């Protein structure tokens, strides 16, 4: 806290909005958000690669590689890595998605140098053959565990059908077959191809010394290899369909539907956020009143999922099996009405109030600031302050929503997947 005399506030060299930016000669992008009122900082290496960028034969390699970065480097074995994170009191983790893989930790201010040293080293993993064989079992266990998680399975099915025949259709974890068949050479090849320094972002948010961070990252990462960047575009126009996965062993029926969406750099991205909030927010949205509060679903939500060059509007619900047909119809009707009928000024105002308030509240966390620095950079090639984002949300008008829905009609196509006791013959 700013009143704490133990915490010095050195001159930071930050822009007035608290941002720091620097690009190393080798292409590594450094991003920072200085937050003087906290005692900690969150930092990450954000690699712009994920499940979408894999060859089908090595599906799951991004996630497997994420695990392998914890297994050892040229100078550290896995015990060193875990011990060092623990010794600096780090709250650390890593995540792999369709479009990025990131390695992050939150530490107290004084541990930032030790953290950067460790995170940077992990970006050059040893990828040892014996470690690879052992970790393969852990990955296979994780896949088995996900098999026991109906929600995760169903989300995979939605992606599989909505983004058919593209990298986005494959599960990020891979399959038992691809993981069992994978070789360490294939993983090394993937690392060489996608983990170039020019395909990464380093981001930090919280209390840190920028000049020291910059110098340390330059020293640690200056000699790293270059790789390909970007990815092949995909075009999506799946036929409307309903896919039923009958699972008599489940008690609940799960339902997910994908509708046309927008890409992460779409000029109407804030209009899309507002429209998605009006449709599917967990508080007071149309789906909330028309599907959850009428008792058709136990829980329902919907939002735009904006990605690189593509996106979708997805709705997910859990319900009693007997109500599946009615819930499906109610969701379709809500989406149809959002596409065709006038939207209320009060709905617009509340959606904007909620989004603006959440933006400020989540902006108080160093982790979410760190990740949103990366998100803005990837989507826009620049950083947006919370105030700029709040102003853009506040500026959205009904006309913006009408223009968006005319340009990207919600009822263009829909891909629905459902899993639970209901059989296909029970649904129209």
């Amino acid at each position, binding site marked *: *806290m700013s009143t704490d005399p133990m915490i010095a506030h050195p001159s930071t060299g930050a822009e007035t909005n608290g941002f720091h930016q620097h690009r190393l000669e080798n292409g590594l992008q450094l991003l920072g958000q200085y937050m003087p009122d906290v005692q900690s900082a969150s930092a990450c290496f954000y690699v712009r690669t994920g499940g979408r960028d894999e060859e089908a034969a090595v599906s799951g390699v991004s996630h497997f590689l994420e695990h392998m970065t914890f297994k050892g480097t040229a100078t550290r074995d896995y015990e060193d890595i875990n011990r060092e994170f623990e010794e600096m009191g780090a709250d650390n983790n890593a995540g792999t998605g369709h479009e990025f893989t990131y390695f992050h930790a939150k530490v107290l201010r004084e541990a930032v140098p030790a953290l950067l040293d460790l995170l940077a080293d992990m970006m050059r993993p040893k990828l040892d053959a014996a470690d690879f064989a052992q970790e393969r079992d852990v990955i296979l266990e994780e896949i088995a565990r996900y098999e026991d998680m109906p929600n995760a399975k169903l989300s995979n099915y939605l992606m599989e059908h909505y983004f058919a025949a593209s990298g986005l259709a494959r599960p990020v974890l891979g399959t038992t077959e691809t993981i069992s068949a994978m070789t360490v050479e294939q993983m090394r090849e993937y690392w060489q191809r996608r983990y170039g320094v020019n395909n990464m972002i380093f981001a930090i948010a919280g209390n840190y010394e920028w000049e020291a961070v910059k110098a340390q990252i330059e020293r640690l990462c200056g000699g790293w290899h270059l790789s390909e960047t970007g990815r092949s575009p995909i075009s999506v126009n799946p036929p409307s369909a309903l896919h039923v996965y009958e699972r008599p062993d*489940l008690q609940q029926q799960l339902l997910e539907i994908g509708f046309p969406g927008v890409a992460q750099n779409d000029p109407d991205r804030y209009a899309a956020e507002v429209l998605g909030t009006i449709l599917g927010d967990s508080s007071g949205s149309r789906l909330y009143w028309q599907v959850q509060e009428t008792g058709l679903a136990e829980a329902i939500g919907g939002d735009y999922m904006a990605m690189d060059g593509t996106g979708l509007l997805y709705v997910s619900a859990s319900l*009693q099996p007997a109500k599946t047909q009615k819930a499906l119809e109610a969701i379709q009707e809500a989406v149809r009405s959002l596409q065709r009928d006038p939207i209320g000024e009060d709905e617009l105002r509340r959606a904007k109030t909620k989004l603006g308030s959440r933006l400020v509240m989540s902006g108080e966390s160093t982790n979410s600031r760190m990740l949103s620095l990366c998100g803005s950079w990837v989507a826009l090639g620049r950083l947006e302050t919370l105030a700029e984002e709040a102003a853009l949300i506040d500026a959205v008008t009904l006309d913006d929503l009408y223009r968006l829905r005319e340009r990207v009609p919600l009822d263009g196509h829909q891909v629905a997947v459902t899993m639970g006791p209901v059989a296909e013959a029970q649904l129209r």
Partner: protein
Amino acid sequence: MTDSRSQGSPFPTHTLANGLRIVAQPMGGVESLAFGFCVATGARDEEEHEAGISHFIDGLAFQGTALRDTRALTEAFDDLGARRDASAGTELFWYAAQALGRHMEALVPLMAEVARRPRFDPAEAEKVRDRQLQELAALEDEPAQKVLDLLQREYFHGHSYGHSVLGSPESVRALQPADLRAFWARTQLPNNIIVAAAGKLDFDRLAAAVEAACGDWEAGDPPPLPDAPATEPRVAVVVRESNQQHIGIGLAGVPVGHSDYYAVALLATILGGSMNSRLFTEVREKRGLAYGVGASSASMRNAGMIRIYAGTVPAKAHETVAVTLDELRKLESGGVTEGELSRAKTVIKSRVVMGGENTRVRRNVIGSSLWYENKVRTLDQVRALIDAVTTAQIQEAAVRLQIGSRYTLTAIGPRSSEELLGNEH
């Protein structure tokens, strides 16, 4: 009536004439305010026919008040951009909200309306009942959760600390609005409530807003605290088809405020609280037996438990149990090393400091601390308590709690108790 609205107190408090206590932590550098009513009740106060009623009430909490229907109440919160949540636990029940601090004067009376004037609308109650029955059904589909629910029940067998917050399908089906009102009226009393707030706030204005909204709330006689449970080791295994074997092991812990509280928290961290812990290293890293394995300590007003979870493929389930029990024996007989202790202290201290930056975390900490220990500690005081724990204290605690020999085991999956325990049993 106590009042410590002294200048410079990090946690100003104030008690209303009806016994309702207010505690706050003004924080710099934040715009948000986390606010809540912390009620000293939960599943532990439920009679058998009321099982699940606390959670039923939390499900109805934001579905209208005596003054507004569901839609009007939802819109009132959305107009403030406020997140809100009600949650029932074993012994604490929270009505919680977070909004920008500038909305404090509107948020406090709205939250008081929710806590004081429940609607218990019969039609809304039917939806909440359906949802809770679905949650019970979903738990059957999530055995990793279910096995820990089962562990709590078995560990505290016969004691109200073992009550499941979800209740049972039979009890939930039978609950009526009159039951809800009766339970609410006997537990949710101002002298059984702490109002906690953290973030951007002015304490005098906050206290005045709470007084205006709650000053005329009549005190009553809340249920007494349960006696400390006498726990006996048990084994309960649900055999069923699954790709995974889910295992829960419960060991004795200590209550909140016990002199060994941080010693036990450190012990659980060393055992299974990080990727560098003994169980993670021995079960997952060295032997590849389980994907998920971990331990944590859970403490209540007058009992505590150390919980261990492991998820594995059935073929490796027996070895997972054997290795885990072996680690427990080693911990009791050999204690922990200075290096392990030092690392675990850093883990817990960092968590305390980093959690201290979040207004919702601070609200929850100061509200529950005041109830558990009748005081709130600064982060520096907490750090000093953690630093004072020694390896000798941890081993003494491990011996006293019989960590190596006294355990309750629960499991869900294809293996029987004999297959899991072999000659351990």
